């Protein structure tokens, strides 16, 4: 059934269709409607789940971890300061191998207070051991929630489904809401290999001496490395059932592209418009949008970028004292590889400033005027 819904409700419908059993969340702009709708669904019986109201995001994630350890499929959502407050528990989720799925609405970090989009909130959680998906449409948000549960539960690693504040969270789009029976076929009930139960008591997450901790972390990394293939596999299954492919990346006009934009999130949709306009001017442009950021799809990126003559990375984020974060990551993927094109880094849209097709054309003009980047950060739209 097709519905016109906001990105936030695409998360809610995803969590509902996944038959989430426990939802613990604390409201924060611009995430609030996600859990508002889920709490209504729990209250009116649409969703047979326990909705736990808590006093903070730290407690929200703590409640999710307890529920997940007891074997429940568990969902939550947050944004910016809320995500930052959860930080400690994000490590507990991944280290505890608890496959919680969380929506995060990309919102700029305060101060000054901002409710608008940028990616520094979720990228600050880069090293917590969570899988991270960056979405570019409301449909992709809903589909990715279902895929995230499947991938997370198979490998016992939590997932974050990330969408831009307002550009997606509050913008209404047509979304195909899949049939529940088909979703049930794609995503069976969560059946963890172990759980917290009186029938089989265990001590969980206790003191772990140096003789064992290292191996547990090794195992987490080894399972993380299985994520890209599993995302491809579940994406193909998803396409077979629902007609929409879900991949690690979304390559638009990349096959013959000489100039590649490398993007993530909703700015990736804007880049497509710029690619069309540049193509009309005779420029062989393409847009390579990264969906899976953690684990980083090294192989796919190396393969795709090798074919281009120039690559321009757009970052709606900044690692202060370093560069745009996707730019760093892409450079790290290409280092030491033969025959790679020069990579230019651009930062735009911090704190919700619009990123327009014109900005992408400015990036194209800037990068095409030089053989190699002469600065690590190309600033787009800063009034200076």
């Amino acid at each position, binding site marked *: 059934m097709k519905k016109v819904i906001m990105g936030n409700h695409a998360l809610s419908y995803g969590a509902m269709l996944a038959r989430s059993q426990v939802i613990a969340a604390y409201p924060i702009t611009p995430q609030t409607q996600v859990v508002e709708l889920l709490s209504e669904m729990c209250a009116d019986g649409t969703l047979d789940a326990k909705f736990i109201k808590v006093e903070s995001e730290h407690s929200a994630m703590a409640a999710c971890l307890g529920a997940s350890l007891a074997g429940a499929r568990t969902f939550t959502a947050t944004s910016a300061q809320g995500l930052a407050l959860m930080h400690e528990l994000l490590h507990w989720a991944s280290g505890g191998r608890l496959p919680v799925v969380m929506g995060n609405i990309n919102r700029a970090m305060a101060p000054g207070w901002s409710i608008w989009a940028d990616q520094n909130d979720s990228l600050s959680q880069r090293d917590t051991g969570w899988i991270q998906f960056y979405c570019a449409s409301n449909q992709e948000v809903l589909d990715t929630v279902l895929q995230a549960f499947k991938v997370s539960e198979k490998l016992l690693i939590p997932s974050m489904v990330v969408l831009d504040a307002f550009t997606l969270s509050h913008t209404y789009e047509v979304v195909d809401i899949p049939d529940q029976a088909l979703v049930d076929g794609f995503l069976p009930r969560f059946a963890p290999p172990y759980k917290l139960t009186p029938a089989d008591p*265990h001590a969980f997450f206790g003191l*772990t001496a140096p003789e064992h901790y290292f191996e547990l972390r090794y195992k987490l990394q080894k*399972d993380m490395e299985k994520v890209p293939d599993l995302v491809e596999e579940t994406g193909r299954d998803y396409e077979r059932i629902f007609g929409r492919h879900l991949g690690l990346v979304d390559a638009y006009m990349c096959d013959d592209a000489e100039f590649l934009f490398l993007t993530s999130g909703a700015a990736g949709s804007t880049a497509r418009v710029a690619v069309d306009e540049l193509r009309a001017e005779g420029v062989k442009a393409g847009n390579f949008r990264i969906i899976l950021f953690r684990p980083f799809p090294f192989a796919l990126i190396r393969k795709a970028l090798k074919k281009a003559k120039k690559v321009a990375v757009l970052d709606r984020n900044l690692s202060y004292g370093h560069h745009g974060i996707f730019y760093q990551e892409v450079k790290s993927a290409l280092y030491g590889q033969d025959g790679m094109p020069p990579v230019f880094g651009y930062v735009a849209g911090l704190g919700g400033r619009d990123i327009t097709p014109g900005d992408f054309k400015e990036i194209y003009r800037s990068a095409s005027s030089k053989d190699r980047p002469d600065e690590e950060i190309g600033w787009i739209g800063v009034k200076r």
Partner: protein
Amino acid sequence: MIRKKDVKKIVFASEKEMPVTAMSLGSMLYNKTGAWRNIRPEVDRSKCIQCGICWKFCPDASIDIVDNWPAVDYVYCKGCGICAEECPTKCIVMVEEEK
């Protein structure tokens, strides 16, 4: 009531034999936290009403109920005093350890 499992100190030779997360690694068999204690809870049975609140509140599962009476496991009790604080009849008092 479920019997406590017989857990031995476990040392894995390889990650392949290990659980995916820190689960029942038996670390408390050698990490005897009672050594940290400098005050110990003592139960005065003449005032105890067998309510089980101390058992419920102990954050380290160091109070068991044996024949309806609270029994402190001094091998693990760190002497935090929560049981004494929560006891409604104040039958638990914290006594200085003499070492």
